[in-house]
């Protein structure tokens, strides 16, 4: 197998830039100098601006659209609606149910109706204002339960239930000595990447094709959907990755791609569209708000006997990935714990809210907040502490999920918990250390300087969260990544279509090549659709999948190089290995630098890497639907002012199952960044909709964690290389944001319980001041 190379090497022995070291990002210097080109920085000669007209209503019939006044504005080059879509009228990642432009009805506030192209963004704005749309209001479906009970007429031809899936496992009548239950709510979170949606479309002469530069998570999937809507052959639509300013799931769906291409092809001129922050909140999918009822049965000593749950996920107006998000939620209901019996019922429904889809954690975030809240209730009911209840039930390699699927990956759940518990608690006193002059450091108080928390009121709490997360795609999806490696006259060039969204695949891909092939300098070719699909940068999958493809391509090239050297130097190729930057004959000890051996040689290999096939779930939710799993534990320490409802997260400790850290600094970056987003969901971030209207679609009212909100993070990487992973490395992006949220909420509960011995249930995230103090 491939996993043992570095693990057996002494620490610190790795050649710089290879696997296990932390070389700097190849795009790092350009980024710190402001020279890195993000998609919003792109333009072209003769480029026009595009803009999108959006519905102000959550549910209405379009009676008429009058474009005449917009056409008459100087500088307006074209105005398009659904009537101008030459191909498929709908797109979507799983079901093609979302119109390119609404033509008969609008189903959410922000749904696109028309687009304009003009000489300046201000001209575009005036043109949009000049378009007159007459609406007939319809009764909006805003209560997910009404989608389930069919008391509201269908708001879409595909119906109001996007997916219903139950899981029945073991003895459904089993009961436990101890029973705890709760109903948990998770608010709608926004990915809030900083780099707003932007794209540049350049049409081919004669309109025979188009090149789109866009910030996206999956170039090839975009291309498939775009080509269908444009009625062009797929190969006539070429996508190039525009610099991506973060993604977190929000760039998995189409937003402005088709509109930009339509405008450019219509005019035969380059067109760029760039969303504002307000438009971005409307223009991409969000994390599903969910309501989860959960009941745990356990023995009196805390062993889980059965889990019952009902989960309702509000998918908003269009399907996006709701059906897959739901499956992640129901199949992760047990958390990282053994559970012999279960009855789980899950719904993903359609409403006239903003569409929801992928966000980091993908359904497991919601399930985890419920199961971890339940574990604390169970601990209290059994008289155990939160760590002990989790250790008692911790899943191990080989244990089955409630779907019947055995967890075949390394499953170091117990170690995650114990290693987290072993990390030091913060040494800062409640309210922080005084400053040098002895004064109170108000910035360390809950609420900071702008509030009036009194240090004597503050209570410190500790809470736990532990999670399991599936990696890669599920349910039979043909999930693969492609990589091309070209070794030409000593120059190594890697090409892949893997979206670099900030996670650092552009750093680890050359690390893999240096390790496998003994080269030092690796050239990265442009990331575009001129090579096979890499799949999506999502589901914590690219290190495993595109990393696996790069690894396989490098190994194939290496074999070819061995054959070449065998022929030219009369050596048995089977005896050759790469050691550092040398080719070495393991028998004779003869060696030659790889650079010298590859002089005058051209070897060019393209390889597709696939993970083992997965299966469907049957009607009882049984089946091996997932590919692989990773685990993590979080311990949160918070200071709470119970009078004012203010929270200061003081520290997060975490031990994460990473398999093998290919680039430890990048892993740490994923851990800290993911925890920040988990903290956001715990105490800050929620998109508020009232009657289907977003009320806080801006960064003044949608609160993101800042430097002052983010606590110290102490982390341990658990490196038990996974034999199923091509490089032993598990995906690390999602776990940090999953159980950090329930850990923080549990810590708040713990603090409040110390105040009056009772506390507050806090069954909803984000926790608001009023939930604490009222």
């Amino acid at each position, binding site marked *: 197998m491939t996993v043992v190379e570095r693990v057996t090497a002494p620490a610190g022995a790795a050649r710089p830039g290879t696997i296990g070291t932390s070389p700097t990002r190849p795009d790092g210097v350009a980024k710190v100098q402001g020279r890195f080109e993000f998609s919003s920085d792109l333009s072209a000669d003769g480029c026009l601006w595009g803009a999108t007209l959006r519905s102000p209503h959550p549910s209405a019939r379009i009676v008429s659209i009058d474009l005449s006044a917009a056409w008459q504005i100087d500088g307006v080059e074209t105005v398009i609606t659904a009537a101008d879509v030459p191909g498929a009228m709908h797109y979507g990642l799983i079901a093609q149910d979302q119109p390119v432009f609404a033509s008969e009805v609008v189903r959410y506030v922000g749904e696109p109706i028309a687009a304009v192209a003009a000489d300046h963004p201000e001209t575009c704005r005036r043109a949009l204002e000049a378009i007159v749309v007459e609406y007939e209001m319809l009764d909006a479906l805003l209560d997910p339960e009404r989608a389930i009970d069919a008391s509201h007429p269908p708001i879409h031809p595909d119906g109001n239930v996007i997916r219903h899936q139950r899981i029945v496992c073991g003895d459904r009548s089993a009961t436990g000595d101890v029973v705890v239950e709760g109903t948990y709510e998770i608010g709608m979170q926004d990915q809030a990447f900083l780099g707003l949606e932007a794209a540049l479309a350049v049409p081919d002469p004669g309109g025979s094709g188009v090149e789109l530069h866009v910030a996206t998570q999956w170039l090839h999937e975009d291309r498939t959907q775009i080509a269908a809507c444009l009625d062009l052959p797929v190969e006539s639509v070429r996508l190039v990755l525009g610099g991506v*300013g973060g993604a977190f799931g929000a760039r998995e769906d189409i937003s402005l791609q088709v509109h930009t291409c339509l405008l450019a092809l219509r005019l035969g001129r380059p067109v760029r569209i760039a969303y504002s922050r307000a438009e971005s909140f409307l223009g991409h999918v969000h994390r599903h708000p969910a309501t989860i009822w959960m009941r745990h049965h356990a023995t009196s000593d805390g062993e889980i006997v059965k889990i019952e749950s009902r989960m309702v996920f509000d998918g908003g107006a269009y399907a996006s990935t709701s059906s897959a998000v739901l499956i992640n939620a129901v199949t992760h209901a047990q958390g990282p714990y053994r559970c012999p019996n279960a009855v789980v019922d899950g719904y993903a429904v359609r409403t006239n809210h903003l569409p929801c889809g992928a966000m980091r954690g993908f359904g497991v975030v919601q399930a985890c907040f419920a199961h971890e809240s339940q574990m604390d209730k169970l601990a209290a009911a059994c008289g155990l502490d939160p760590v002990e209840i989790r250790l008692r039930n911790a899943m191990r390699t080989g244990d089955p999920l409630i779907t019947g699927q055995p967890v075949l990956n390394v499953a170091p759940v117990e170690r995650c918990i114990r290693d987290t518990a072993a990390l030091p608690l913060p040494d800062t006193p409640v309210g922080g250390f005084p400053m040098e002059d002895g004064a109170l450091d108000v910035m360390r108080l809950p609420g900071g300087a702008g509030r009036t928390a009194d240090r004597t009121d503050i209570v410190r709490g500790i809470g736990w969260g532990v999670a399991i997360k599936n990696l890669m795609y599920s349910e039979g999806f043909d999930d693969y990544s492609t990589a091309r490696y070209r070794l030409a006259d000593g120059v190594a060039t890697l090409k892949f279509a893997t979206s670099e969204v900030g996670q650092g695949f552009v750093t680890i891909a050359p690390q893999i090549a240096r390790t496998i092939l003994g080269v030092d300098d690796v050239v990265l070719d442009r990331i575009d659709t001129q090579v096979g699909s890499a799949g999506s940068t999502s589901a914590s999958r690219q290190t495993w999948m595109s990393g696996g493809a790069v690894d396989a391509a490098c190994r194939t090239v290496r074999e070819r190089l061995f054959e070449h050297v065998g022929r030219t130097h009369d050596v048995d190729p089977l005896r050759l290995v790469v050691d550092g930057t040398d080719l070495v004959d393991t028998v004779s000890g003869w060696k030659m630098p790889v650079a010298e051996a590859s002089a005058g040689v051209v070897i060019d290999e393209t390889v597709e890497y696939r993970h083992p096939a997965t299966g469907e779930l049957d009607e009882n939710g049984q089946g091996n639907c997932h590919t692989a799993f990773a685990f993590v534990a979080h311990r949160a320490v918070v200071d709470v002012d119970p009078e004012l409802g203010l929270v200061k997260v003081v520290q997060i400790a975490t031990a994460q199952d990473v398999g093998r850290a290919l680039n430890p600094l990048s892993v740490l970056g994923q851990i800290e960044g993911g925890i920040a987003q988990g903290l956001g969901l715990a105490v800050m971030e929620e998109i508020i909709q009232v009657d289907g209207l977003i009320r806080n679609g801006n960064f003044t009212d949608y609160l993101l964690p800042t430097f002052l909100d983010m606590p110290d993070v102490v982390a341990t990487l658990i490196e038990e290389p996974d034999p199923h992973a091509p490089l032993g490395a598990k995906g690390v992006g999602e776990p940090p944001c999953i159980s950090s949220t329930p850990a923080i909420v549990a810590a708040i509960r713990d603090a409040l319980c110390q105040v009056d011995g009772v506390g507050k249930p806090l069954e909803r995230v984000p926790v608001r001041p009023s939930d604490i103090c009222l």
Partner: protein
Amino acid sequence: MTTTIGDGDHFSLHVNGIRCEVTDSWLGESLLDVLRDRLGLLGAKGACEQGECGSCSVMVDDVLVCSCLVMAASVVDQPIVTIEGIAPIDAPSDVQAAFVEAGAVQCGFCTPGLIVAAHDLLERLPRPSETQIREELAGNVCRCTGYGRIIEAVQQVAVRRAGGGS
């Protein structure tokens, strides 16, 4: 030296030591839009348009500002320093180098603003405490890193400038 605003759409700015003529602007345009769309200086980024995220941070007359909140025509007499003026391309500043080395950069969209803000911080507070770093940089939002590596980078620079390292 003083530039008066003539016919309403022609003025000049002093950016990174260079006098830049702005000929096709309208008076209400933000400094951010003028830098990006009129002068072609794309280093400052727009991400919130309301001064909440700091991605557009630049120095105006030695004061750190969100350029999205400053009317370009109101700063015609004041020296402006953008990310492009922080250091030569072939000689990144100590702050820039530390950000790259410490892992403070992921997607990089917040980075130019943070580099400008970190330089400003270290000019005013050469030995900032961790709380001071957090407070001073709290106007710059990063969605990728969780801030830990950025704090590390700033601390490294402070130590090195104080002679604590090479």
